[in-house]
């Protein structure tokens, strides 16, 4: 009986202490930043010029905050279109989340692209699989490599690493497994 009581009491006391500490040591996190981070690809390829998707989300959220002066730093419209793997769709989503209108004519319109291995050129050197941030490239030494379509984020890291130019970026091929019915046009 006393064992149950003492453990319960101990747990309750520790819980109250932790609860108070949580209040006192609360870290303010920007809800907008988390929302933006959820939209970004999350492969941390670094093509935007930031240290990763989290850093990019922070930069966009800072630029979008009303306290930030618009004169210095990269303007918000350029930041929204900074993600090449995301393409036009991501830029539109980001602009929608921030409630701004952005000229998207400069953004590559062909949609998301993924890397594809040209099998007649691949020599199985494994260099591409080492630079892939998402482990999307399959293949052992002296075996022809292949790209996992679901894992590739189109960051283009592997294209430069290939000595035989066997890796090319192609629009995501549509197969029976991946086809989705297009949305009806808004009336």
């Amino acid at each position, binding site marked *: 009986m006393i*064992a149950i009581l*003492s453990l319960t009491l*101990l*747990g309750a006391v520790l819980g109250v202490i*932790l609860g108070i*500490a949580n209040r006192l*040591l*609360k*870290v303010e996190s920007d809800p907008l930043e988390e929302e933006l981070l959820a939209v970004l690809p999350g492969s941390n390829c670094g093509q935007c010029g930031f240290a990763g998707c989290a850093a990019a989300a922070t930069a966009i959220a800072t630029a979008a905050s009303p306290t930030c002066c618009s004169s210095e730093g990269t303007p918000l419209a350029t930041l929204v279109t900074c993600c090449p793997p995301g393409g036009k769709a991501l830029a539109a989503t980001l602009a929608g989340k921030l409630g701004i209108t952005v000229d998207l004519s400069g953004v590559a319109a062909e949609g998301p692209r993924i890397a594809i291995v040209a099998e007649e050129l691949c020599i199985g050197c494994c260099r591409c699989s080492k630079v892939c941030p998402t482990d999307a490239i399959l293949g052992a030494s002296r075996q022809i490599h292949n790209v996992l379509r679901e894992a590739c984020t189109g960051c283009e890291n592997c294209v430069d690493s290939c000595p035989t130019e066997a890796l090319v970026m192609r629009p995501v091929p549509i197969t029976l497994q991946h086809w989705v019915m297009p949305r009806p046009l808004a009336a």
Partner: protein
Amino acid sequence: MSEVILLLLSTALVNNVVLIKFLGLCPVMGVSKSVDSAFGMGLATTFVLTLAAAASWMLDNWLLRPFGMGYLRILTFILVIAAVVQFTEMFIRKASPGLYRSLGIYLPLITTNCAVLGVALLNVEQRFSLFKSLLYGFGSALGFTLVLVIFAGLRERVALAQVPAAFAGAPIALVTISLLALAFMGFSGLNV
């Protein structure tokens, strides 16, 4: 005074918690890639270990022993350690976001660091006083931090060295830490 210094020396060097008792190897292998994060991890573990040693002494002497509930020892100690680690995590997140990010998953994993529980249980076994058990915890944590920082420095050098392909990565780290353990065996000749 000399007793205090002797106890600290013997726990930190002669009976080093990592290299002689082989406790808490997971963070030593995991967070020793750079000296900075190793030092941060050492400080966090020092805080947790010292506080947990004192709190577990109080619980053991004032609650568990008088009521004959020695069988609840591990359970209560883990509970206290988990709470202290949670508090440390909140504090580091508030005080130093950079350190919080570099420690990553290893920060909450201090809970399952067997050095923390091991030191608390050894305290009970040796029937120290409160002050002595506090010192024992602090000395062990000092030893842990020392080994972590030395090992991180060694690993930073090894990362630049030419290592045979079969040994690259974790194997050479294990070889390095075993050599370090051999070196620490030398302290057992110290008469403290």
